[in-house]
């Protein structure tokens, strides 16, 4: 299967080359870039919105549109980071540090060109890692049974909460557990008992994922954006855009390192592009011969940040396809969209849809090329979009959020769900609770519930396999280590113990 991989990708690429598909690829990437560019509109929100809006389309077209929006948004976010010092999406926050000083020096065009090219390389690196590793992880995933899937869901929540709320992981875990509970509202999958529905027929169906996502990411952003109205001032002079080859060749180490970091972080459930970008930036700074230039317009910093966040896209799709566990918040929506369109990602994907991995890889290749072409052209026109006042933009976004939430089931109830979760998302943001674990919880809740109960049924109530099966044990160990690593007294105890042990083995003078 692996030997045929490149050939299969090529075959899928050929299938995508048709005027209509190319048209969809370009407009979707362009829309994604606009969403990414505009501060306040995130990749997750864009994909969630488009999932609803493309619901009636042919599945293949709908998924390619969503992938293009994903890639476009993460790439486009660097525009506003460079020109406004406001990241278009959280993933581009690290790009502000060096992109904006470059723009202030009149090298905005060079920064945009380099960021776009680094994003392209990062995306391509990520997608090839995805194509290579997904089948292997898929094979390992076949060893996962109910016990392991239960622990995987819990592990996803814990690691996601840990990394998306570095200052206070407790809030990340609370957010994740709350998300798990939200997903369990309505009829459950084993005995069809209606939980927490309070006799309301609409509640028996549970909360649909898209209205929850649109609410938490979109509506919360609309309220936040309207509360603090910012009038952007864009530097109109951008200068040379096409990057010099030597700027890229000289920094190949940073590109490679950031690519690897992006893919690894992407593959960790729920963590996402923003963490990948910051970690890549940090590693680049540590490895640089000129760390003092970081934060003052360093090309190395900008390249590392943009390669890292885009490589994360491919990484985040690896667990989506192999385990049905999203690697990032946008990937979570992509997973939901795949479900909506009849594809069941997970361990059986390679049997049910043998070519799907290659199909997604081909779609990402097209998206990354479209993103590069659009990034390096129409820059001046795109810059003007940044000048649209928020007071005009946000009400329009609200209207689109309403349509997007309504479209999936044509229920007014979903609009209220969206609004309710929008208020919750806004409150969570103000109280420093990350939204990503909540979203991951909503996705993984059913997996945790059904697998735990199914496992207990299989063992007639015996809980020992949860703690004795090898993969379960590894997952439990990872969960315990993740939690322990964030408990301060334990951390101090461990470091003191390690120091004492080291001392025992050190030769005394």
């Amino acid at each position, binding site marked *: 299967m692996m030997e045929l991989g490149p050939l299969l990708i090529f075959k899928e690429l050929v299938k995508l080359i048709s005027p209509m598909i190319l048209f969809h690829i370009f407009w979707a990437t362009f829309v994604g870039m606009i969403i990414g560019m505009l501060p306040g509109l995130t990749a997750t929100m864009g994909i969630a919105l488009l999932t*609803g*809006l*493309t*619901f*009636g*389309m042919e599945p293949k077209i709908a998924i390619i549109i969503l992938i293009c929006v994903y890639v476009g948004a993460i790439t486009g976010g660097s525009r506003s980071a460079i020109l406004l010092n406001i990241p278009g999406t959280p993933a581009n926050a690290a790009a502000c540090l060096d992109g904006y000083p470059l723009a202030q020096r009149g090298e905005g065009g060079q920064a945009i060109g380099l960021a776009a090219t680094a994003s392209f390389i990062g995306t391509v690196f990520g997608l090839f890692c995805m194509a290579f590793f997904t089948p292997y992880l898929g094979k390992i995933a076949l060893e996962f049974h109910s016990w392991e899937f239960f622990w995987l869901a819990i592990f996803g929540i814990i690691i996601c909460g840990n990394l998306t709320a570095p200052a*206070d992981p*407790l*809030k990340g*875990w*609370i957010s994740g*557990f*709350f998300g*798990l*509970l939200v997903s*369990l509202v309505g009829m*459950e999958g*084993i*005995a069809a*008992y209606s*939980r*927490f529905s309070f006799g309301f027929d609409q509640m028996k169906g549970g909360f649909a994922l898209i209205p929850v996502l649109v609410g938490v990411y979109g*509506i919360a952003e*609309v*309220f936040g954006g*309207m*509360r*603090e*109205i910012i009038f952007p001032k864009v530097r109109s002079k951008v200068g040379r855009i096409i990057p010099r080859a030597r700027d890229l060749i000289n920094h190949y180490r940073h590109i490679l390192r950031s690519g690897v970091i992006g893919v690894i972080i992407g593959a960790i459930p729920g963590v996402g592009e923003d963490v990948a970008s910051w970690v890549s930036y940090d590693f680049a700074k540590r490895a640089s011969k000129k760390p003092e230039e970081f934060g003052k317009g360093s090309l190395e910093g900008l390249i590392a940040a943009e390669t890292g966040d885009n490589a994360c896209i491919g990484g985040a799709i690896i667990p989506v396809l192999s385990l049905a566990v999203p690697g990032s918040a946008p990937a979570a929506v992509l997973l939901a969209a795949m479900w909506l369109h009849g594809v069941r990602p997970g361990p059986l994907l390679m049997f049910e849809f043998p070519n799907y991995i290659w199909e997604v890889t081909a779609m990402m290749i097209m998206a990354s090329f479209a993103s590069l072409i659009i990034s390096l052209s129409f820059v001046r026109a795109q810059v003007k979009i940044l000048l649209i*006042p928020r*007071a*005009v933009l*946000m*009400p*329009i976004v*609200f*209207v*689109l959020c*309403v*349509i997007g939430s*309504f*479209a999936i089931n*044509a229920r*007014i109830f979903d*609009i*209220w769900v969206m*609004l309710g979760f929008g*208020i919750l998302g806004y409150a969570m943001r*103000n*109280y*420093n*609770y990350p939204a990503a674990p909540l979203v991951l919880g909503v996705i993984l809740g059913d997996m*945790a*519930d059904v697998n*735990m*109960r*199914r496992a*207990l*049924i299989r063992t007639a*109530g015996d809980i020992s396999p949860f703690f004795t099966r090898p993969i379960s044990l590894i997952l439990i160990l990872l969960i315990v280590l993740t939690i322990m690593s964030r408990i301060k007294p334990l951390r101090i105890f461990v470091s003191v113990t390690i120091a004492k042990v080291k001392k025992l083995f050190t030769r005394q003078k």
Partner: protein
Amino acid sequence: MEYEFKRQDFYSGLIIIAISLFVVVESWRMPRYFQGWPVYAAPGIVTGLLGLGLLGMGITLTIRSIRRQGTPLAFKRSDILSYLKDPKTHRLGLMFALSLIYCLFLGHRLFYIVVTVIYLAIAMITFRGTSPFKAIMISLMVAIGVALIFNRIFLIPLP
């Protein structure tokens, strides 16, 4: 050290405790042998465990916030008044009210385009995004565009 989220953590901790207690009690009240399934497959088992986990975290958050230095836990009248007088709060309240009214009008046999144009125009004019004439024109174009593209091309029903 001043801990800026001391008060927020305290109140959000209390809310989490209340929610998790509700979840635990509701889970306990769920049937144990539903439709012949054994007790360990009961619908409330996972929700109960998650509720207990959330309860533990809510208690930790609340106790931690009480023990930390920082803002007093009780709200003063001046705090509430200054929050209510803040223009940002006014904008947030206004946007929320407008959005709520818009949602209330949807799905009640009112023509989608009309409701959307009115909502968009009022929002843009109230928040001074652009001149009233431009706001009405943009609203018209957006509402008609959305209705045409999504209803006619993407075949999505309008609320």
